[in-house]
């Protein structure tokens, strides 16, 4: 059973079909990449999975439970967490408090009654934000802001973790550390779904890659096969269109 199973989801905004019968599956313990050109529908897919956008058709299952009509917080409570393409940080709070909010909320609904403070400190160390833990999040560069969002999501001990362009704004060294952290999370049994434009990161860390183009899932497979798939090359580079002309 896949930790996350999205089947034939369709989303229409007015006359625009943003997702067209798109399916996606993510296994526990694996990193699944979701790539595609700008406007392909990747963030909309994440919004459908988390419940921010209601699909006109299709089904979303999280850990085997039908989550299609479920409210947002209910989805989180069955193990879903995410980060956002455009940062959704709590701007009046510090780095520590941002992560603490996630830990506090998790304590409210989970059986885990350990110390929220200890969990927060452990996460701060894990994502490498100790030096800026007391800084207000608005003072951080984007790359570190993304780590705060990741830390906040980790405070919910997710089974399925959706990361929307988490490496943008990070330098090479930060991206390398980030890739290692993702692998660690997957090894702990988390199903990680990664939307990312940094292809070297995607190809390096992902076990499976799904490719979206104009709302249609055009390819899926291991990174090497996707990388050489002519349909994917066409979507990204327009190679076959160029050859035809």
């Amino acid at each position, binding site marked *: 059973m896949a930790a996350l199973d999205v089947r034939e989801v369709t989303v229409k905004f007015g006359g625009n079909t943003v997702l067209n019968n798109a399916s996606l599956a993510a296994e526990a313990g694996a990193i699944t990449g979701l790539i595609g050109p700008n406007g392909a529908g990747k963030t909309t897919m994440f919004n459908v999975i988390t419940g921010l956008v209601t699909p006109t058709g299709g089904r979303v299952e999280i850990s085997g439970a039908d989550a299609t009509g479920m409210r947002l917080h209910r989805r989180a409570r069955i193990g879903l967490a995410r980060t956002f393409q455009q940062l959704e940080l709590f701007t*009046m*709070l510090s780095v520590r408090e941002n992560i603490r909010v996630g830990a506090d909320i998790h304590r409210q609904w989970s059986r885990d009654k350990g110390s929220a403070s200890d969990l927060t400190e452990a996460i701060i160390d894990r994502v490498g934000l100790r030096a800026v833990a007391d800084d207000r999040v608005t003072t951080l560069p984007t790359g570190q802001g993304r780590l705060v969002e990741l830390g906040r999501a980790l405070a919910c001990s997710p089974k399925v973790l959706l990361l929307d362009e988490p490496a943008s704004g990070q330098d090479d060294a930060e991206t390398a550390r980030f890739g290692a952290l993702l692998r660690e999370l997957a090894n702990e049994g988390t199903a990680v779904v990664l939307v990312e434009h940094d292809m070297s990161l995607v190809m390096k860390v992902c076990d499976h890659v799904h490719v979206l183009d104009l709302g249609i899932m055009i390819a899926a497979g291991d990174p090497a096969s996707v990388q050489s798939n002519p349909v994917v090359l066409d979507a990204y580079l327009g190679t076959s269109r160029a050859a035809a002309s």
Partner: protein
Amino acid sequence: MEKFLIFTIVGLSLAAIYAVISSGLVLTYTTTGIFNFAHGAIGMLAAFAYWQLRFDWGWPAPIALVVVLFVLAPAFGLLLERVIMRGLVGTSEATKLVVSISLLVAMIGLATLIWPSGTSRPMSTFFQGRRVDLGITTITYHQAITITTAILVAVGLRFLLYRTRIGISMRANVDDRNLALLNGARPDRVGLYSWAIGASLAAIGGILIAPALSLDPGSLSLLIVNAYAAAIFGRLRSLPMTFVGAIVLGLTEGYLAAYLPGENQYLAGLRPAAAVIVLFIVLLFVPNPRLRTRSQLREFFPPPSPTGMVMMAVGVVTFAMVLVTTMDTTNVITYGQMFPLAIVALSLVPLVGYAGQISLAQLSFGGIGAIVVAHHGIGGTPFGLLFAVVVAAIVGGMVALPLRRLSGIYLALATAAFAVALDRWIFILPDFDLGSLHISLFQLGSTDIDPLKLFGYTFESAGSRVMLSAVGFALSALLVAAVRWSAFGRQLVAMRDSEAACATLGLNLVWPRVFVFMLSAGIAGLGGALYGMQLGTVGPDRFSLISGLPIFMLVVVGGAGLVGGALFAGIGLYGVIPLTSALGPIVAKINAVSPGLMGIGLGRNPSGALPLIQDGMKPLRRDPLVLAAMTVAMVLIYLARLADVFANWPFVLAVVAVFLVANVVAGRRARVADDSSAEVALSTDDLDWVGITTPWTQTHLARLGDVFADDGLPPLTGLTATTVQALGVSDGRA
């Protein structure tokens, strides 16, 4: 049948006025995102201006109309947009709302200033007394003009929005402001036109409705609250639905006037409250709004520090003690109001400041607290006070639960509707029974409240009651600060920033919203109960929406997320204003407008005035020597006052003078200290300021090389003599 037709026309005429007013409101809201609470006040000012030209100066009606509708009103709209509204981009809903409420308060003050109350200003209808015979019934010329005007406005707006370039720009601006901007539209110009047209529409409404009422700034400005209900029918976007809403409202009011049994005391208040009840009900059916994301607000409120909170609590109680020991009973009663009403203001801090929710009904919850303590605190039992808090919190919860999906302007309007329904209907009801429960309110006038009795001590004197309220404020302030430090407080602040992020962490947004509303209503209930207790006898007029608006306004002006913001509101409204008003009638007149003007200034600094004041006082707070000297001087002045060496005015002036001198001295001492530290910064040991306050020298470069070497970084390369020269680096030895 005759009666039905007559009141149908009355209803339609009212509907026409509501339609004209609300269409202006919708126009400005959709194109600029600002819900203008002062829209009615613009109509009120226009009605006064028309009265001045037409009836006082005797100008012909057409000329007076042209001047008001096509010159004064649009010019006022343009002025508002340029001076005030344009500065509100990127501010929270609360800030935008406060600015427009402030405008409302300032305009009521301005009208009172220009046209003092107490003078009769009769304003006749158009073609007074003349009627048109429709066969089955007759209609007055004024009614016919009103209905025709509404139809013309509808046709005109349709033409404007669909057939003119600026109208299309307006619609594009509504759909996507940024996209419109990229395509060459100019949102600022759209805003200007919208405000000008909106002001003219408000003016038409004001002039048409004024003859049916007396020319009174307050009631005229607020009667137009009814028009808001029509705008909500169109969800503040659709003009056709707004017109439908206006017809529903107008006819409802018309038929209620015709068929509601006038002699029934329980139903008498229903007709004036009908529009706001409809408003409340319509708001319940507003479709689920999208969760707030990426608010990126300019406001920032740091959490209170424990030391600061304790100092403030002690300071408030000390201040109250000074007040009651130096003033006579009359003044103690006058100025003592600041403490219980500061508690009402404090109730807004967790709600508005932390959670970003808006309530305009806090003083109404205070009224509920006062009623409960009046009837259940007989003999001074402390349970009365406790019960007041609990009942106010429960009523708060009952209001919040159906409104739990709403936020921003919708929530503000719903709570305003609740407050007005209490004002116009519930608070003036006689006693009634609800099953076996006997409900007693203000008993058709005012109700007495017994002083509190605690551990055998009765808070009998005015001074002791003021002290009780001050202690109540101090404890409530500590509670509100503790909420901010708690997990619940962090969640509220988080929700304010991004509801979507909170929900995706597993937070059910309903309960924090309801709980914070209950907490806030409970605190307001305590404030109202203590206020009532302090006064001994209270009536419903003390807890009206209009009385509560300045409190809301000044909390946000002070800093909605700061506990001190509540104190700012209490002291400002019930301390500084009466104190300075005592200086003379001119200051009193200025004071009628000044709270509004303070609120209007909020757009420039949305985090409020307190951070500025705190910044200004930073040198004093950090200078123990000057602080101690100031405290000693103030204690000595206080002792001299107790010994009757001088009266209250010299006492106040001396305290203010000592405070100002202490600030100046501490400021100077801080500047001297800053200068010497700046000199240290300019030395070669500190490279932070080099290049900014002093030019780079070879010595600095050498020092930079050392720092690189210390940190294990590769040596500086490329900074040869030529590049150094090109960078304008001079030789440090020169």
